[in-house]
């Protein structure tokens, strides 16, 4: 097969609050809404992705945390019940998802070839992490596409942001190669927030938006700076500033997803589309799309 490519890449964060606010049938708790700015951002992202023909969605979530290499879901199907360990009051979600096993194996093989430690996860009892479930739901509530799910290696914690970036650059390139070799059109999702300082208390009604705001001005400035880099195509500068951003904004980019995404997209110099920004329990979240297909020859 030829013609495999990444047709779009997205920063698609996973606050379970957004699923909770939507009251989908899969989620047990019910709410009166909330976090509309971000949910409208996801509406715009979904509308945009609906225009882009694609076969598979590849997700890297910071809540499948692995210390021993990078892992990929390695069975054709996973079903289960995902409960957020921090916000179990908001997120108890019944899932049933399909894996594109060929592409997962392809990325695994390319990662090994690039010198990374990589493993296929083939235990059927494994519970898929709530970050993956949330991001997958928010981008495609119908679960209409097969997924490839990649763990977040915690090299940031074991070494440094710099080492994390090197590893995630390799993994991003390996992902790109495997997608190209697969002949498939893939949407690639980095499931992470930006600034990530939480409030340590929760209002009585979690969706009470009078309590919702960024935790500090410094966090806001960092988020706006990073978004500005994205929407102006300054990927290299963003990656250069990633160590400071990750440390100072305690950003969820520590899980490597954004660095991985930007390398899978081959360091885009075109402008990304900001679909929405909002805070969730104080953390900064942006929904951003790199419409790679617009910049590829002969595609539409």
């Amino acid at each position, binding site marked *: 097969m030829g013609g495999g490519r990444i047709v779009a890449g997205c920063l698609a964060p996973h606050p379970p609050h957004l699923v909770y606010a939507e009251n989908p049938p899969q989620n047990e708790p019910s709410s009166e809404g909330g976090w509309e700015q971000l949910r409208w951002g996801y509406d715009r992202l979904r509308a945009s992705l609906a225009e882009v023909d694609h076969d598979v969605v590849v997700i890297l979530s910071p809540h499948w945390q692995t210390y*021993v290499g990078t892992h990929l879901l390695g069975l054709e199907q996973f079903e289960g019940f995902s409960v957020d360990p921090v916000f179990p009051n908001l997120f108890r979600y019944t899932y049933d998802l399909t894996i594109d096993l060929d592409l997962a194996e392809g990325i695994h093989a390319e990662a090994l070839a690039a010198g990374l430690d990589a493993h296929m996860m083939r235990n059927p009892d494994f519970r898929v992490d709530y970050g993956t479930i949330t991001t997958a739901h928010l981008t495609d509530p119908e679960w209409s596409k097969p997924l490839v799910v990649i763990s977040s290696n915690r090299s940031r*914690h074991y070494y440094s942001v710099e080492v994390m970036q090197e590893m995630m650059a390799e993994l991003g390139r390996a992902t790109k190669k495997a997608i190209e070799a697969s002949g498939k059109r893939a949407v690639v999702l980095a499931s992470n927030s930006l600034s990530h300082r939480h409030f340590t208390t929760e209002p009585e009604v979690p969706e009470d938006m009078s309590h919702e705001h960024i935790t500090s001005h410094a966090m806001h400035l960092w988020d706006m700076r990073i978004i500005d880099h994205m929407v102006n195509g300054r990927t290299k500068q963003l990656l250069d500033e990633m160590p400071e951003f990750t440390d100072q904004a305690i950003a969820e980019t520590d899980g490597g997803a954004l660095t991985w995404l930007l390398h899978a997209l081959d360091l885009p110099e075109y402008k990304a589309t900001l679909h929405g920004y909002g805070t969730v329990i104080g953390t900064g979240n942006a929904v951003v799309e790199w419409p790679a297909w617009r910049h590829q020859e002969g595609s539409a």
Partner: protein
Amino acid sequence: MTVVASFVVPVHPHPMLAPESNEGYGRLRAAFDEASARIEASGADLLIVYSTTWPSIIGHQIQADPNPVWNLVDHDFHELGTMHYDFDIDADFAHAWRDAAEGRGLTARTVNYHGFPIDVGSVVSLSLLNPGNRIPAVIVSSNVYANRTETTVLAKSCLDAAAAAGKKVAVVAAMSLSNRMFTRRIEPEEDRIHSLKDDEWNRKILQFLEDGRLEDVGQLSRTIHHQIRVQKVVAFKPMWFLSAMNDHRNDLTGEVLAYEALHGAGGAVIHLDPASNGRGDKEYDEENVEVFGGDRNVLDTDSEEQDTEDAPAAHPAPASNSGPALWDPVEGEDAVNTDTAPKPVGAYPHARRVGDMLYLSGVGPRQPGTNAIPGGPIHDGKGQALDYDIKAQTRAVVQNVERVLKEAGGSLENVVDVTSFLVDMDRDFAGYNEVWADTLGKVGPTRTTLAIRSLPTPIAVEMKVVAHLPQ
């Protein structure tokens, strides 16, 4: 005695799922079995697990599902198999603990949700230490932002609840010593502690614990965290929890049942028996905190805007920023005044002599010179309540009484009658009474204790003292 036994156990699934694949894993498993037998022999009727693999953000979470059942697969070591669990949780105790924690100023909540993901450290320790749910258990999370005060107070609230329920508790800290793993998969026979440095620090910790010096290890927590811990969380907390559960003692009877490598991390099974090892307790130099005063919000530039609206503020307000003006003590023929006692807040002397009797003006804890209040003021300049230490305030009152008596040529021995005033009898009587027993209680004056609405400065205790002091 509330805590009848304490244990440190590792969090990795290998001793549970693959004890035969490596001799070290097998020895850890045997040590788990031995610890399990000791818990049974201890007569404990409640097992408390503080698990470092259960991180939380909104305060501490306490498991309150009476019967959590699930299949757990480790994020890294999924190839070892599935851990099925089916636990009996003491939900009543979980709720009582939450209430006690909130009573001490902490944010805490119980979780009771079908399918809640119980963490690997808790599953391994409960499965191996409490087979067949011999005794009910409760699991508590490790808050990622919590530091020593919060962790210590969490333990004290557990002791409050256990004492109220008349429980005999076995405490388990599910934790690694050094926690750096090999970042590539290794064969079981290749397993060893990740580095010599990690091994040396682990052995130092083991030696301390074998000597029963739990509080000393707690005091070393920050150093240990920097030396041999991957910086995943804010601090190395479980020793703070365990030490506070054991009254910050340094004379426990410790025994290391096993110490082995788990994919590079340091895993140990350690038994700490509350029986004194007879070697004598040791001093410690960090504060023994009783309540949590809330986040200090050190990152906020604007103190008007509080992240934590529910928690009482604990800004360390200088004591001299509020309260009435200070006066020089009134001089007079029979007056006794001294620079070593705090200045009056009105026109009166420190004491007045009438024959062999010395009558002291009301004495509070304020310090001469600085006007600071040991144990902290009871409210800030805006009247917002602050956390304070009644014992420290009471001790300071007694010291000030002693200073005035010394100026008059006497000592505490001369005190014959005391009237004490407390602004919060319910909160403070016990602490005040404890200090009294250690000081004036040994002299034996008559005493009357009254609850009053307030005192002129932000203090919680004042004493009116009469002494018999022959010239």
